[in-house]
């Protein structure tokens, strides 16, 4: 099992989520993060003084899938996340040893992604 961890733009998320859903991967988690990279910062002015932010808002997407599904997820993210401009982000793949579904206590790969009807 792997966790696909992607840092993407806000606008990129909806298309990614929608396609993942249709591909049968409804389960994922996101959070708001701030990142720095090549992308330039932004400078604010306040009563004469300045303040520069080198961090820009990004969305962090986490999706744990079976090894065989990793490439599908990565490709979907790359496909919709790309604008070609600096700041598109990165995708990382981390190993996962074990998974559990809290509701049932089930364990292992089958808990990773809900079945299609689960997409409801």
């Amino acid at each position, binding site marked *: 099992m792997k966790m696909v961890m992607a840092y993407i733009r806000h606008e990129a998320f909806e*298309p990614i989520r929608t396609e993942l859903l249709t591909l049968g991967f409804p389960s994922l988690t996101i959070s708001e993060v701030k990142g720095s990279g090549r992308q330039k910062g932004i400078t604010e002015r306040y009563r004469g003084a300045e303040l520069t932010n080198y961090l820009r808002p990004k*969305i962090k997407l986490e999706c744990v899938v079976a090894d065989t599904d990793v490439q599908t997820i990565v490709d979907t993210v790359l496909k919709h*996340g790309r604008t070609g401009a600096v700041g598109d982000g990165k995708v990382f793949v981390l190993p996962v040893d074990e998974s559990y579904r809290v509701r049932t206590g089930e364990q292992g790969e089958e808990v990773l992604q809900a079945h299609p009807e689960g997409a409801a």
Partner: protein
Amino acid sequence: MSLAAIPASVGINTIWVIVAGVLVMFMQAGFAFLEIGFSRQKNAGTVIAKILTNFSIAAIAYWAVGFAFAFGAGSLIGHKGFFLHGYGDPLKAFPIMGFSDATITSKFFFQFVFAAVSLAIVWGTTLERTKFGVYIIYAIVFSAVIYPIGSHWVFGGGWLQTKVGMQDFAGSTAVHLIGATGAFAALLHLGPRRGKYTVEGQARAIPGHSMPLFGLGVLILWLGWFGFNPGSTLLGTDGRFADIVVVTNLAAAAGVLTALATMWVKTKTYDIGMAGNGAIAALVAITAGSGYVAPWAGVVIGGVAGVIVVIGVLAIDKRLDDPVGALSAHGLAGIWGTLACGIFTSPRLATLNGVGHGGLIYNGSFRQLGDQALGVVTVFAFVFVLSWLTFWAIKKTYGMRVTAEEEEDGLDISEHGMYGYPEQFIPAPELVGYGGGPSRTVPPAPVPIPEV
């Protein structure tokens, strides 16, 4: 009609009554923000819908029947001026206000905003869990029947005022206690918010989401009180209302300081909410006496109210979930303020107002104090019974509170379909309205311009 024919006093008095009424109308914003500040983010928007709806219902109902019940001639209940129509000579139709030549529409407006204030007070205990329809139903009953009758007795020319001689210049009992009594009845049927008490029954803190907005509410209420008490003279010509402005302000100031001090003694912190509650409680307390007592007495009455509200809130919170402290600030303080007339009313002002007698400290007699107590008890009982039954009926039919899940999601989204602070709840990427590719991020073309 020739303007010359009209005495200057009509213009002067009408201007003052309308100015005062407009200040009192704005108290709706005060109550709204006091409640909003004491609510959690997920329940902030509903307060706006409630205030607008309740104020509107009261406007129609009080115009249709409420005013006639409250100020029309009659000892138990008034019965002139329904729809502000066909009442003949206003000075005779609404005798208790006959001493002022302000136009009847100005008096009506002034009395209506009082009714709306009393209604707003009712909901202080019901935040964050009440079904919206409850506000609608009770608002009708309250502003058409309960408040008009109760206030008629106390300052509409009813028996407590004219026969008993109960003193309540601007409504510590007639407006604030009546509202707080409705709030009490509602709370008994409603129960506490989820999570207010642990399974062991321990009270937990459910902090409101914005002290600044709470403070805005308090300051607006304080402002409004300069219409509330001084406006109750219904006269601008003699300039006496200015004395009442001063007494009112001194009382409020004392209330803030004593509440702050009391809380400091208890918790070693300068409690923001209690400072505000102290002001409100003091203003409520001085409402009855503002036209009857001397400035120094105002300081005492307000100061005591500041202590009462703190002790009241802390004690009540242990068993009853009253998010804004309405039971203490409007109920206990309203009772204290009404009784205080029995102690501090100056004989000179009692005579000037033509109601009751001087207080205990002036003539050593408990008579006025007794009359005040009688008034408090009857009004409380009357309003409590009617309100309790009304809410009982609502509970049995429509229901009083939302489901546990709706309460958890918050009233804004579950009752109103949208959060009060959408960006605090809706995931940012789901708010964005355009996909990632550059191709899709160009702004939609402007709508073609139609021929004119």
